């Protein structure tokens, strides 16, 4: 075991082990190179006091990095943008030699954006056969995933594997992760990871994000530097003969010229996440801080936040936003976009390929492109860089040692790189059933679109970010090109690369702003309502939270 401080994995958790107090004390100890945790029983409260791991202690829990050299990319990465692959190697390479599973059955809970595949389908069967184990997937709607995680983690029936996107870690979820999921350090830290070569190829920065409360708890799904984009229907924009907007004002005039409510077409869906990027608004926890005049300032205290809200409100007031989007029906955003009811919508860049491959059969004219970011005034945008891992999967801590090892071996299979037989099965399914090879590129069959194309096994673990879709070479070029154009404008936020677990008492402070921004954007409250909310936020613990982060900053320095 590389890390002598890590407890034996199968040791059952006793209440005393769960009452760790980390926080300031632990951070101090860590920077001094001391023990990772300071168990403290002097305080009467047992709830989490918050934590972050940095420095040497962090290095000790991180797995070694052994990049994969199986296949070389066609479009190399620029400034950290993802490399692109446009064709498959022939023949496919083999990455995992033996069946990873030992015949066990695992239950997995993963998010899905799109249609849930049928249970017991041919794809699952083929995957289970290849794995030598049964993975029972329970994909749940990604747009309402946060509510479900809160309930599932509070219950005693936690699945063996749970995937949690970083943006869903609001409120108390990070505390739950510390308490509910297995410490993977003993299996993966340092050289131990070399037992799983594909997991060893995951970059260190991604693993760093999977350290919660000083321990390696998750398998990171390493993502690109910029995860969200405003997508537009190039086919519709060209048909309308309108120029793409380059400033916030032009967005409004663009919206007016393409909105045609009589014919059920609106310019925009809910664009809030990306509107914030146009105004350089900070991301969410723990990246919602910025140093101004030597003081930490929260995003809700900034002028940019108010300007972004006012702009979003303007789009609503001018009736440029689809009414169903304003009614909070986020789950149907994709359908509104593909059916042409909206011209622009926002999505994770991960959704780009799925939509293009789905529409390429149904609507050959469908042309979806990502809008280049610009600052609201038309200048250079300030884009806050995304963490190196945005989605994580966690293993139930009640799993015995053998099962954890088995599941990690399965994860290793799922993380096989592009160009391997394993990658092909995970991402495309079975040749002949789910896809056909056409000019050396896989093309999905209808069954493939239903069963193999929605990401399921992918969430268990995935290779380092690449844009590798030989069936959609044009989309690969569009995507890799867009990302390379945005990359120069990226800036790392204050606490970049740190997984900060906020103290339980303050972890819920920010959640009210989620309601507030909707109320403001949808015309139910004025922008000035932010002021009241901010003063309530300060009174109910905002200042203490600021001090908590200031302390981390003082002791560890910035992650930017």
């Amino acid at each position: 075991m590389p890390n002598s401080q890590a407890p034996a994995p199968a040791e059952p958790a006793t209440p005393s082990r769960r009452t760790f107090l980390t926080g300031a004390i632990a951070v101090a100890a860590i920077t001094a190179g001391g023990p990772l945790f300071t168990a403290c029983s002097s305080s009467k409260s047992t709830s989490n006091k918050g934590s972050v791991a940095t420095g040497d202690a962090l290095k000790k829990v991180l797995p070694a990095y052994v990049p994969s050299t199986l296949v070389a990319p066609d479009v190399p990465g620029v400034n950290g943008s993802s490399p692109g692959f446009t064709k498959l190697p022939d023949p496919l390479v083999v990455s995992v030699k033996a069946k990873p599973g030992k015949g066990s059955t695992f239950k997995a809970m993963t998010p899905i954006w799109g249609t849930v595949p049928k249970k017991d389908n041919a794809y699952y069967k083929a995957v289970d056969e290849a794995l030598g184990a049964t993975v029972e997937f329970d994909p749940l709607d990604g747009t309402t995933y946060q509510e479900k995680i809160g309930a599932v983690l509070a219950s005693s029936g936690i699945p063996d594997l749970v995937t949690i996107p970083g943006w869903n870690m609001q409120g108390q979820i990070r505390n739950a992760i510390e308490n509910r999921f297995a410490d993977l350090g003993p299996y993966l830290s340092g050289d131990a990871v070399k037992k799983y070569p594909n997991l060893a190829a995951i970059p260190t920065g991604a693993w760093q994000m999977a350290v919660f409360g000083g321990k390696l708890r998750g398998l990171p799904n390493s993502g690109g530097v910029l995860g969200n984009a405003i997508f537009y229907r190039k086919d519709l924009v060209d048909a309308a003969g309108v120029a793409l907007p380059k400033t916030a004002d032009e967005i409004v005039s663009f919206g007016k010229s393409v909105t045609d409510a009589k014919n059920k077409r609106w310019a925009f869906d809910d664009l809030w996440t990306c509107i914030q990027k146009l105004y350089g608004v900070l991301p969410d926890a723990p990246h919602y801080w910025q140093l101004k005049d030597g003081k930490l300032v929260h995003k809700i205290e900034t002028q940019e936040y108010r300007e972004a809200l006012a702009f979003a409100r303007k789009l609503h007031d001018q009736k440029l936003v689809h009414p169903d989007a304003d009614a909070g029906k986020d789950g149907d955003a994709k359908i509104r976009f593909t059916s042409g009811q909206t011209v622009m919508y926002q999505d994770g860049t991960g959704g780009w390929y799925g939509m293009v491959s789905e529409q390429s059969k149904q609507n050959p004219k469908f042309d979806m492109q990502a809008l280049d970011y610009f600052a609201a005034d038309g200048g250079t945008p300030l884009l806050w860089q995304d963490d190196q891992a945005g989605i994580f999967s966690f293993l139930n801590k009640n799993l015995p040692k053998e099962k954890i090892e088995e599941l990690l071996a399965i994860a290793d299979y799922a993380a096989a790189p592009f160009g391997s037989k394993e990658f092909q099965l995970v991402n495309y399914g079975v040749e002949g059933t789910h896809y056909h090879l056409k000019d050396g590129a896989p093309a999905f069959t209808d069954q493939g679109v239903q069963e193999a194309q929605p990401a399921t096994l992918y969430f268990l673990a995935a290779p380092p970010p690449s844009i590798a879709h030989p069936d959609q070479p044009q989309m690969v070029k569009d995507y890799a090109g867009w990302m390379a154009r945005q990359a120069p404008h990226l800036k790392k936020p204050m606490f970049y690369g740190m997984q900060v677990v906020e103290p339980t008492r303050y972890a819920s402070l920010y959640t009210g702003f989620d309601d507030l921004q909707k109320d403001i954007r949808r015309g139910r409250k004025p922008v000035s309502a932010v002021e009241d909310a901010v003063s309530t936020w300060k009174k109910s613990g905002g200042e203490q939270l600021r001090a908590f982060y200031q302390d981390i900053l003082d002791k560890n320095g910035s992650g930017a």
Partner: protein
Amino acid sequence: MRTRVRVAAGLPRHPGTDGTARQEHAAPAAAPTPKPPAPGITRRQRFRRDRTLLLMTVPAVVLLLIFNYVPLLGNVVAFQEYDVYGAGITGSPFVGFENFQRLFEDYRFWEVIGNTLSITFTQLILFFPIPIALALLLNSVFNDRVRAWVQGIVYLPHFFSWVLVITVFQQMFGGAGLIAQHLRQHGVDGFDLMTNPGLFKFLVTWQAVWKDAGWGVIVFLAALSAVNPDLYEAAAVDGANRWRRMWHITLPALRPVIALLLVLRVGDSLNAGFEQILLQRDAVGPGASEILDTYVWWTGIKTGDFGYAAAAGIFKGVFSVLLVLLANRAAHLLGEQGVYSKK
């Protein structure tokens, strides 16, 4: 069932036209018979005599204990700074009434109570009479086939899930719905029922009517079917017209059922429809739509403040019990039996 028996048993014997007077006579006949133990029979003898019956109640009692009473113990988290993911119930510190104090000091909580009551009373006034009216209407239809057909149609929406009902409403009355689009074609812009916070309580009432009014008819139809047709004939012979017959025969027959359901509904007032409202929370914002149940969900499940949420839940429970007691008392004062009575 008891009310139905009472109506059937009570009416033929007292074919008077005054509902109140008849009710007074009817009550003793229908009262259950919890007779005091006959002198000379000890508790043990009674137990032996009733053991088969007692044995038969055991499964129900066990289920009740496991699913209704044991979980009640979990309410202890309302008095703790409860850390659901870490320390658990045994390890979390007790903080007395701190959660309740925070609750009562929170302006949002009072806003939530206001919303809950306003939605409930809108429903009580606008929704409650509709199944009764519908039952009377159906009862007056003599063609059995027409009646079955209408009944089938009005029952059907009850079996739709709320997700479906709200999607149907969105497609019909939303800003991009059928009606809005039709109006737009004719130059009227801006129709959107689904995102109007001011109309929200009427919207949810309307949805409830569409979904459940047909279902609510069943109980009233059952009560109506128990009315002796001779009464109508006799009244008709005496020259009573259709309205007088309804007023003096049909409605009095329904009175006990109406009172019973009203008491239950009042006790249920703080349940304004969790799922239905949660699904539309984002459309109108929490200012108009947050009710106690969604608030408990939001603070507990979504933000993880379980102690606080449990305190809100307990408040709801206590308040509901008080409402049931009050409504029951009111029913007694009006000469009805209500949900239960002491005698």
